[in-house]
């Protein structure tokens, strides 16, 4: 039986994830229980959203480094609007956050798609520009939990359902639904396949009559909107939002995307892999804090070397598999 390459990659990633969890279970007393899931699932939900948005952008051969600033901005502005208008219907608030995020994404997308500027430069610049907009408009003051409506701050801990001791929060359900929707869109819809076409061979895509500019613009808008939704969850989970909110999230999102097997040069990848990548990053992040042998300060170092290891293994293995294929097969 032959397993498709993409599926194989997901299975390997899943195996690595399970092995990581089992490893920590053997090292930390009382590790493998419902509390682990309850604690980690909430933060995975946020990172997974950002990472899926990042995946759309990376598929088209671009990168969005401004995403951490977008999360910070949407969390801050959504909080600010809610403080000014506490009567806003709750259902409207996440949509508002996504709209704010999409607006930031549209700025990136416009600059990259309309003027053909390299996305790494544009988003490196907007990373700083968006953050300075946040600093400028906040005037040094922060959003605090006690000024926000209670429904918002309790939303992050509300369960959609429970399975025994496992508490599945609403934010986790929403996040998983978004990942599944993105997966179906990217694999089953013509508009979704366009992202792969643009990324794997822009010239061929142009000859086939696909509109690269519009697709790239759309990728950045999606990335912004999902960062906006993540910003809403961020606001709900932490309540206190300062000007440094979301700092460094762009690294985690790129890390999850790369670990998840999305080719950094565009054209191939799977958002289910990205979800596992995000979960893997967060499990390692959270577990090292509790691992007694190793100081918690190893977190970043381990994360960095792990990303490097994953990419290297992936590149070397892919090269070997591609070389082994008989000539003439695609």
């Amino acid at each position, binding site marked *: 039986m032959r397993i498709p390459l993409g599926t194989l990659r997901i299975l390997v990633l899943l195996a690595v994830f399970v092995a990581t969890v089992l490893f920590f279970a053997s090292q930390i007393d009382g590790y493998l229980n419902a509390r682990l899931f309850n604690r980690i699932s909430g933060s995975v939900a946020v990172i997974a959203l950002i990472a899926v948005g990042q995946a759309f952008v990376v598929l088209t051969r671009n*990168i969005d480094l401004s995403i951490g600033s977008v999360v910070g901005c949407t969390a801050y502005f959504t909080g600010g609007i809610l403080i000014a208008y506490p009567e806003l219907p709750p259902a409207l608030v996440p949509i508002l956050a996504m709209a704010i995020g999409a607006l930031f994404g549209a700025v990136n997308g416009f*600059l990259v798609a309309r*003027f*053909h*500027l*390299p996305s*790494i*430069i*544009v988003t*490196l*610049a*907007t*990373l*700083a*520009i968006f*953050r*300075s*907009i946040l*600093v*400028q408009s906040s005037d040094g003051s922060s959003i605090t939990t006690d000024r926000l409506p209670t429904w918002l701050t309790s939303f992050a801990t509300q369960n959609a359902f429970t399975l025994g001791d496992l508490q599945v929060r609403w934010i986790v359900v929403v996040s998983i639904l978004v990942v599944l929707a993105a997966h179906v869109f990217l694999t089953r819809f013509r508009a979704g396949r366009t992202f792969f076409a643009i990324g794997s061979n822009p010239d061929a895509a142009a000859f086939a009559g696909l509109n690269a500019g519009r697709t790239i613009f759309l990728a950045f808008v999606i990335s912004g909107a999902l960062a906006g939704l993540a910003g809403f969850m961020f606001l709900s989970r932490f309540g206190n939002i300062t*000007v440094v909110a979301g700092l460094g999230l762009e*690294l985690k999102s*790129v*890390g999850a995307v*790369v670990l998840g097997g999305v080719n*950094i*040069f565009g054209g191939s990848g799977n958002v289910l892999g990205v979800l596992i990548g995000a979960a893997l990053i967060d499990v390692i992040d959270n577990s090292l804090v509790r691992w007694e042998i190793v*100081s918690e*300060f*190893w*977190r*970043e*170092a*381990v*994360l*960095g*070397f792990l*990303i*490097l290891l994953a*990419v*290297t293994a992936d*590149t*070397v293995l892919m090269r070997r598999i591609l070389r082994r294929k008989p000539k003439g097969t695609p």
Partner: protein
Amino acid sequence: MIALRSWEGFLFAVLILIYLVNTWNSPVFLTVGNQINMFQLSVEKIIVALVMTFVIINGEIDLSVASVMGLAACAFGWLVQAGVPGGGAVLIALGIGIACGAFNALFIVGFGIPSLVVTLATMIAFRGLARVLVEDRGINDFPAWFDAVGQQGLIGPVPLAMVLFAILAVIAFLILQRTAFGRKVYFIGANRAVAEYSGLDVRAVKAKIFVAAGLVAALAGLLFAARVGAVRGDVANGFELDIITMVLLGGVSIFGGAGTMSGTILAILIVLALRNGMALENITGHIQTGVLGILLILSVMVPLIRETGARLIARAR
């Protein structure tokens, strides 16, 4: 002479404009003390920008430089605290910088993984190692001579770091614009495949540049530690943005193959003068960085604007 129509000429005009505006706005700006202060506050970044020019013209990127700066500084602090004499600690820290650069090169040149991905990962990893060394402490019991080197003037009021920058700028200029190695850097950046088919030692050139980036970043990290007189885990965190902005603003193409050392040096002066001018007007660091971001986007749009302008003029005729 720099032709006024070139990018360098344009940068030069912008620089003069900024100097005029700043002098107009603040009587302090043009004083010797402020000018030295302006350089000293960013001297570590501008030293790294010199070597980053090589990296980007070569068609690569190194996001890990700020983390190497942090790691070298923290390693120095850790070694001094462990009882290693200062001179030895300096040498080991520089060695760590070389090792970091070689590590990057191993993955980029050896395994053929894109430098964007490799240095993104090592940016996190090297920063992580720095935090492992000093945890959440600060180390400031450096040898007295080390602090003196960072904080006192070497030639009159000019400290060692600025002297080093001047020397390195001249060396970098000569290597890039006046040697065969410099031509190789351009050639490989402009078209790697053709360079390879022409029998150029592409991998050796790339490896050398990344090792040099590691060494220079470590040196900059040590200078930072000496100037501030203390190290923490977040030393130089986020400096890569400023460094890359300076290089790109200098007209170096992110796709490689184009740019000059004089462009980078002019851009360095512009960024310093702009930041200093804003600081004198009490504009905070975050906003300053935002303004630099806008400048960065404008700088990559300029060729586009020029092209459109030329087309419009042609059509009008």
